[in-house]
């Protein structure tokens, strides 16, 4: 029994008939072919699938596509605007916040949610915010620094505007 969903993903509107059991992550990856959102586990633990649904960080492996009906979704592909990288995307490059890159989209999307709530996070609050995102490569230190870099950069651009 398929159900129609209407969603806005990275600013574009989509309408599809989907099976209720289709997970949102599979809708994004297989139907919309937005493959930047990854699947790293089956217990909602690793955070590789983190996206924003209505502005909130979400593990989309634990959401049915039908639950997202009417929602506004941002994935890693939609984070940068007009070809300009988001400060987090820049920060991860500047501070070597990634190695294999697999956890990176989820990590960045989670960090983006954090910076919305807490523009000047401490090291401790960054580490706490990222507790639901596993990285096996970096040991997290440079990820923390990448988020600090982005926070600093966002603060400076605020000051300019």
């Amino acid at each position, binding site marked *: 029994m398929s159900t129609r969903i209407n969603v806005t993903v990275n600013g574009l509107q989509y309408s599809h008939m989907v099976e209720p*059991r289709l997970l949102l992550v599979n809708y994004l990856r297989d139907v919309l072919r937005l493959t930047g959102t990854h699947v790293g586990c089956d217990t909602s*633990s690793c955070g590789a699938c983190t996206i924003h649904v209505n502005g909130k960080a979400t593990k989309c492996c634990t959401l049915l596509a039908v639950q997202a009906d009417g929602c506004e979704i941002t994935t890693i592909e939609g984070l940068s605007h007009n070809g300009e990288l988001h400060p987090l995307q820049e920060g991860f490059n500047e501070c070597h916040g990634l190695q294999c890159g*697999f956890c990176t989209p989820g990590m960045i999307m989670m960090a983006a949610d954090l910076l919305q709530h807490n523009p000047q996070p401490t090291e401790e609050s960054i580490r706490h915010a*990222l507790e639901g995102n596993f990285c096996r490569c970096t*040991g*997290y230190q440079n990820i923390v620094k990448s988020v600090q870099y982005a926070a600093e950069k966002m603060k400076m651009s605020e000051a300019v505007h």
Partner: protein
Amino acid sequence: MSTNGLIGRSVKRVEDKRFTTGHGNYTDDIILPQQTYAVFVRSQYAHARIVRVDTSVARAMPGVIAIFTGADLANVNGVPCGWQVNFKNGDTMKEPKHPLLVADKARHVGDAIAIVIAESKDQATDAAEAVEVELEELPCVVDAYKAVQPGAALVHDDVPNNKSFDWALGNPLEEVKEAMDKATHVTTLEFVNQRLVPNAIEPRSYNSSYDPVSEKYTLYTSSQNPHLIRLLMCAFVLGIPEHKVRVVSPDVGGGFGSKIFHYTEEALLTWCSKQLNRPVKWTSERSESFLLDAHGRDHVTKAEMGFDEEGKIVALRVKTYANLGAYLSTFSSCIPTYLHGTLLQGLYTTPKINVDVTAVFTNTTPVDAYRGAGRPEATYLLERLIDLAALEMDVDPADLRFRNFIPPFDGVQQPGYQTQVALQYDSGNYEGVLKKGLEMVNYPEVRRAQQEAAHNGKLVGIGFSTYIEACGIAPSAVVGSLGCRAGLFEVGQVRVQPTGKVSVYTGSHSHGQGHETTFAQIVADKLGINLTDVEVVHGDSDSVAFGMGTYGSRSLAVGGSAIMKSIEKIIEKGKKIAAHKLEASADDIEFASGKFTVKGTDRSIGFGEIALTAYVPHVYPKDLEPGLDFSSFYDPANFTYPFGCHIAVVEVDKETGKVSLKRFVAVDDVGNVINPMIVEGQIHGGVVQGIGQALFEGAEYDENGQLTNGSYMDYCMPRADDLPMFETASQVTPCPHNPLGVKGAGEAGTIGSAPAIVNAVIDALWSGGHKVKDIRMPLTSERVWRAMNELIS
């Protein structure tokens, strides 16, 4: 040689943009036209006879294309082991078939019984559930020591005592015993180096297709070494011509060893794609990864270290039972032997060493290389022993090390150091890293704080680990004599395009290590061109001539050196072209900063113009071929031997046993450094995997062979909020035998860190009067609490 200063700089990674914007291309991202999807039916039991497999219901379900069982593959070989180790008596190791699908019996939980292929993954999953499997559960063995005892169940009916092989190395046992008898103090430790699950965050994924017109296969695989997979799959498993197979490892989401091996699914999907004439894709679920990705470690060891009255080590004796799991994985046999026994000299002048290893089959997931592979086990053993000996003898652990270090040697003026266990170290300054570590941690202050804490009823401890490893895994002649069934060289091709832009083709796959940046730095630096003018290509057997892959911290030392050889050839040929154009002798041409110059003159010609001339050879020497493109195979003279000093400071909560890691200092000497930022990143990641082993991780099997913590809900992965900021520094003792002077940094962190943490916890407990010798890793709060309370009462 020319340099523009790129080598040694923390150049930002060129590969990052695709990953930070969601444009990485991992195997599971690929959907081919006519794609089909595979799901496996797997054994729930660790050991079971397959009584009946009924696929009739499943076959009739919607979307199902095919179902294959072990019976369909009776004539297909199993996946091979790449390294032969012989018994002490000379017999060849026992190497039972590792079939692509089991037909007779399942030997570990997760062993594949059937593959279901359907139009969609949903349909394949539904149908796999409908395959009826009747199994007769058999008694099983899980523990390596128990498996060799009389009466234990047999994993393979034709392998007596479950012994794949036994093996020994070092001085004759009698000599070691004699030296041990003379020791004034002997520290003995019986311990388990527990089994770890590698847990690269990208689950393994394969997508294989077959083109009936060209009769060519293409396999996309999340592998660390596509060429080796092609070689093993073609030559050993499927018997298909190698030139008819293209193996591509696109972006790979971490490996840590677990993606080196040739897995059954790779060959099986390739086989299926031809049966169906359609591409077949399978991506491991995490719960499958726990059961199938080759695990690491799993040694049961007894070790004794003898000291004389001055605290000099006089003898070391080691007996290890190594658990290989149910089948021999690709490199499993060399891990507990040539990558473990050979490292037991450590940094010390121990004159007599004997190591004895029994390698054992059990009804568990196969065990193979996991970051460090054998060397963490060796380091853990040595570094636990020496720290414990210091506690027992009431000597300072740093001081005890200084008394035993091999003196500094550069491998050029002074010769390499010949160990008692077959290796010759290349160059080292071992006391240097410990001195630096002590300074960084401010040792006297930590000891003072420890005493003060003890006075206030708190437990603070400091632990050391001074490690060495053998990496840059190569010399084909050496590994060949040790039983490796492949060569271990590397290939590097440098193709200068007519416009002076450069494409580099390397057999060293990159899956997080940043080769696209580091290798480009080398080429740009040596050729005096811009970094953006260099592109590094890897991971595709159709593009790259050959390769042996990335593992054992070998990429830069071996792969980088192969590229260096090709750069030298480019420059040499460039000089000949320049000589012709500048009407001088090639011997008189110097190359520096991207320019070919006639010595002592200002007559010069740029690299770009030489490149153009090579491809537009209108004015060109007769005896020179056009083009500027060289490929080199590099086979080094020796392993490389990075070393370092890791120091941990911990606090143990007396009431709960919870360990808090307060500080972690790492001084690593990985030889010359091309990109310090990347090296530091490798150290961070490595250290956390060692911390993971010490404090968080460990596969737990019950006696029935069930993995009882087969998900992230129970298997504890280190997280951001579990860790402090690390304090790192480097020392540089160049490798004398490769052109870059590099040693390798991929595994150092993991090898060094775990014993430092455990030593620190033991030290903390001793400071509170709990004279505990060992706590089994991972040091969960309950284990530490028990250690404190069972000895105190």
